[in-house]
């Protein structure tokens, strides 16, 4: 066999074997994120109630997905706000807490859960604010993930 050809083919085979051997040890670099979704009573996006009766429960569904590449300890906080309540991807709402839903999700797992909510006070343009929080072991507390959602409601006496 030609000497140069021999060197090239041997080098290629060696490099291929080394790459294959190292592959399982390299950390996977991909986009890591969490997801938060709010669904209506029929588990559909956009099927939200507009008017609810005070002190009567209504059903919504929450959806949380863990694509962080590691197990996450999530809490979905449901808060009762109004038109002036400020909430963003960096700031959580400073509003009264209506309910908390809590679950540990393995990597790649999705969690669909029912939320039976009741609002006591009558009002217009009330905002149900849903925030996703996750437990950060390095600070030993839940931290706001910057993910939020909202449903606008009018609460009547019935």
């Amino acid at each position, binding site marked *: *066999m030609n000497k140069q050809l*021999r*060197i090239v083919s*041997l*080098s290629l*085979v*060696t490099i291929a*074997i*080394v790459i*294959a*051997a*190292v592959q*399982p*040890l390299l950390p996977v670099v991909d986009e890591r994120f969490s997801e938060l979704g709010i669904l209506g009573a029929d588990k559909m996006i956009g099927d939200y109630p507009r008017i609810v009766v005070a002190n009567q429960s209504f059903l919504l569904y929450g959806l949380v997905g863990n694509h962080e590449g*590691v*197990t996450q*300890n999530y809490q979905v906080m449901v808060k009762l706000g109004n038109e002036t309540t400020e909430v963003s991807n960096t700031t959580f709402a400073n509003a009264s807490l209506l309910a908390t839903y*809590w*679950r*540990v*999700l*393995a*990597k790649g797992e999705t969690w669909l859960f029912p939320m039976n909510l009741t609002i006591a006070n009558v009002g217009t343009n009330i905002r149900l604010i849903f925030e996703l929080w996750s*437990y950060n*072991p390095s600070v*030993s507390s839940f931290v706001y993930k910057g993910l939020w959602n909202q449903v606008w409601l009018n609460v009547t006496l019935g």
Partner: protein
Amino acid sequence: MRSSRFVKRSILVSAFLLLIIFSTPAPSQGTEVTVSSTNASINNAFASVYQAERNGGNVSALVQQLNAAILLVQKAEGENLTSPSLATADLESASHIAEQVSQRSVSVSAAGSESRLSQWYESIVIIIVSVLGSTLAYTQWDSIYRRLWLLVYRKHVVIPNDE
């Protein structure tokens, strides 16, 4: 004279009242502390599970146990007003589960580290063998090729064409 006696008496009475206030627990405080301490136990257990997974351990069974503990806490919160004894029992079960998870995550973490280490050794051995094999193949190629040829054709009989 009279005013100083009054001040002394007032201080003594205030101190006595403060002592009574701080030594008497609030009626709902006991259960509330238990809920928060159970939550803290679950979160601590989660931190152990998180670390075990980072070390390469398989934590799927531990995650299921943690969720069972969370469900018990939520159940206890619902029962707190109607049946405090049931709530306490559920919280104790949840704490026990969280404790078990914390303990098991140590062995899961150790198994993960061991598995990762053996994977490292395996990869290093493969790399060394492939590099040595290539070097050997390069330096000894002619000899290896002749030996291989002989191995394949050693029973081959050459028959002259004119027979």
